[in-house]
């Protein structure tokens, strides 16, 4: 009997396997050794099977199974137990109202969490192992007849072609299977929340669960889907609609606000009301740098603070980010390095970028803000528009596994607007999104009942 201490449940091994093995009648034992099949009948372990070569055997051992070697035959016994953490709400995606379960590092538990939410037998899972040295288990999860079989096949093929030493996080897979790996925008949506992944599955998307990481990937996605938060569906729809509009406005702001500020301040001062212009001019009198340099300095400082805030322990990090930003900003203004309007602009941009629900979608924005700022500092509003055009060309040419990245804005699909621009009440959402492959009609359509009269 071979097993790896720490990966196996030694209690179960002792109780069930050793006890039953030790109480086998010696005559039956002979028979058992000679027989060719059904040899597991003496061992009360549900998941067990034969092992035919050393490679598989070692793989089973490292996976936490126990190996039973009897003369020239081997069996693996699934008595795995290793320490996992509790199911808690993921820190990066909290909600006020809604389920608070998040994925953990064990793939089996993760898939089980999904099954608890979606109990239909049409929920299918296919597993494979990736990584020469890590042999990480990766599972594709999808709902049959809702997900596009072409996409499933593409994903499966691409995953199988991955030849890498080890897979430690699902992001490794992400970079391998993407359609456009050079784009700064993510084409799969990573999430740690079970309800987010489950709702994606219900919309006909595919989930990839990776062992040893709580981050589950869903694909295909669109840019508007990255701006949706699970809370939109748990709060009332009027409020959610307003919040969605705010989020879209802030998303655009977080990319364009510094560029807009620079281009108006340096090229088009006639647009500003005279009083405001005078205040800003007064504020800038003592500043030695041109506006573009000011903005770049402040942006760089802000990004540095953000990065620093992540590394520090939670209690300290919080204080550093908020207080640090304000204090440093104030100090810089008093020292005459930057002017106070810049602090406001950069702070508001930072806040706007925090409202993007998916952290992954916030990253390209942080990156793209800089070239946009530079080009608008050179050419003004014309430059900013050119930069935005280039950005939109890029966004419009990306497809995430066959789905246009900017759908439903381009190409326009008015049917999908009810979940992107507004959040229609559930009794109005009687059509599945167009990304779904199968039957577009939800069944049944339930409206408020007739006797619920106001």
């Amino acid at each position, binding site marked *: 009997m071979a097993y790896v201490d720490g990966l196996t449940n030694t209690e179960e091994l002792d109780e069930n396997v050793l006890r039953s093995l030790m109480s086998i009648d010696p005559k039956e034992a002979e028979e058992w050794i000679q027989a060719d099949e059904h040899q597991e009948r003496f061992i009360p372990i549900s998941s067990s099977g034969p092992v035919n070569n050393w490679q598989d055997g070692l793989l089973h051992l490292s996976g936490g199974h126990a190996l039973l070697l009897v003369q020239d035959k081997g069996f693996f016994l699934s008595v795995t137990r290793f320490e996992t953490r509790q199911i808690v709400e993921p820190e990066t995606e909290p909600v006020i109202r809604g389920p608070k379960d998040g994925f953990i590092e064990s793939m089996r538990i993760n898939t089980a969490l999904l099954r608890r939410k979606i109990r239909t037998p049409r929920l299918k899972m296919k597993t494979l192992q990736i990584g020469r040295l890590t042999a990480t288990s990766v599972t594709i999860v999808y709902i049959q007849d809702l997900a596009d079989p072409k996409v499933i096949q593409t994903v499966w093929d691409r995953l199988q072609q991955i030849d890498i030493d080890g897979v430690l996080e699902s992001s490794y897979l992400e970079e391998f299977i993407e359609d456009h790996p050079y784009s700064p925008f993510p084409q799969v949506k990573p999430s740690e929340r079970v309800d987010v992944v489950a709702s994606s599955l219900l919309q006909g998307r595919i989930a990839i669960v990776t062992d040893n990481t709580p981050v589950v990937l869903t694909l295909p996605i669109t840019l508007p889907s990255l701006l949706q938060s699970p809370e939109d569906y748990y709060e009332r729809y009027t409020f959610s609609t307003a919040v969605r509009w705010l989020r879209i406005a802030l998303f655009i702001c977080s990319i364009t606000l510094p560029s807009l500020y620079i281009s*108006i301040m340096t*090229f*088009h001062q*006639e*647009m500003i*009301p005279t009083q*405001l212009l005078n205040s800003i001019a007064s504020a800038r009198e003592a500043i030695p740098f041109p506006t573009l340099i000011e903005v770049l300095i402040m942006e760089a400082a802000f990004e540095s603070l953000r990065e620093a805030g992540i590394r520090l322990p939670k209690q300290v990090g919080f204080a550093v980010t908020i207080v640090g930003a304000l204090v440093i900003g104030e100090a810089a203004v008093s020292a005459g390095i930057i002017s106070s309007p810049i602090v406001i602009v950069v702070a508001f941009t930072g806040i706007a970028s925090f409202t993007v629900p998916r952290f992954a979608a916030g990253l390209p924005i942080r990156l793209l803000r800089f070239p946009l700022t530079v080009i608008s500092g050179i*050419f*003004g*509003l*014309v*430059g*900013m*528009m*050119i930069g*935005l*055009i*280039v950005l*939109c*060309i890029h966004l*419009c*040419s990306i497809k995430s596994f066959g789905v*246009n990245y*900017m759908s439903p*804005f*381009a*190409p*326009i699909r008015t049917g999908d607007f009810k979940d992107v621009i507004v959040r229609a009440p559930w009794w109005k959402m009687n059509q599945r999104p167009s990304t779904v492959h199968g039957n577009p009609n939800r069944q049944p359509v339930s409206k408020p009942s007739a006797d619920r009269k106001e």
Partner: protein
Amino acid sequence: MEQGRISDGQVAYLLYVTVIATSILIMPSIAGQQAGRDFWLSAIIAAVFGFWGIFIALSLNKLYPGLHPFEMFEQLLGSYLGKLLGIVYLFFFLHANALFIRQYAEFVITVFLPKTPVPAIIGLMAAVCALAVRGGIEVLARTAQLFLPISLIVWFGLLLITIPDWEFQNILPILEFGALPSLKGGFLLQTWYGEFIMLAFLIPFLSSGKHIKKYSLWALVGVIITFVLISFSSLLIFGIETTNFIYPFFEVIRYINVGSFFENIDALPLAFWILTIYLKISVFHYAMVYGTAHLLKLSDYRSLSLPLSLLLAATGLWIVPNTQKLIDFFSSVSPTYFTCFNTLLPSIVLLAAWIQRKVKG
């Protein structure tokens, strides 16, 4: 060669933006030179050229379904003459596009950036259009669907704000000198209405042409409404002075003054205008690149996009030495020149194709 397919609605967007982009700024002053106060009537009268362009494109499509116009030329006139006609059209696209990009650059420099050298502005726009064409017709159509609604909302929202300043009596007297001036003005507007013939160059890429008639007519109606609104806004605010401005729409926007904090915002809607001008130049550039690749029998047109855009930028710098010549061109030569390629030649081709079909039995 082009795998991308666009929908009928997207074609309507592209048609609309192609016609509107350059005309929205100077249309009232061009038509007003001949029509005086009645240039808004010219806008309605000239729509007939738009109808004709759509009619030609759709009829040609019925006779040669799914074919690119260059392929039609070859089928109609034989390989040699057909290719020749195609080359002539390519030069037309290059020239017209260079005019548009120059117009854009002149406007931007006059209003926004007086000291910036012209090559920088032209070069930036040409590079961006090259990028768009490289992505293919689908990317072009999708960016159109992204940019056009926003631009329209901004412009018409701002026009709405100007309504309190409209003095309706400025429209009188109507037809002061009879109908002839507005007809003359309408003739000048052909430069833009005739561009509806670009439909013929977009039809080969439709995914399904079922609603194309409906949508292209909607595009035409949209153009008419836009022209009339623009005309009204500048006429009713400025009266006959409108014809003295070079860029009347711009002046209307500059006149907006809400509560003394929302004034002089001309830079903002004109920044959105850059989005539409990019679309127009890209559409023409796409026609040119695709046509060139077709004539040279290449397997992919994308690699031509950047070099041809360099040519476009250079041509844009060479064609006219200053703004006056450009405006003069649009007032005098362009109606005839554009009519020749937008209306006359396609009409002849249609006639010839129809005759050929009849003869063949």
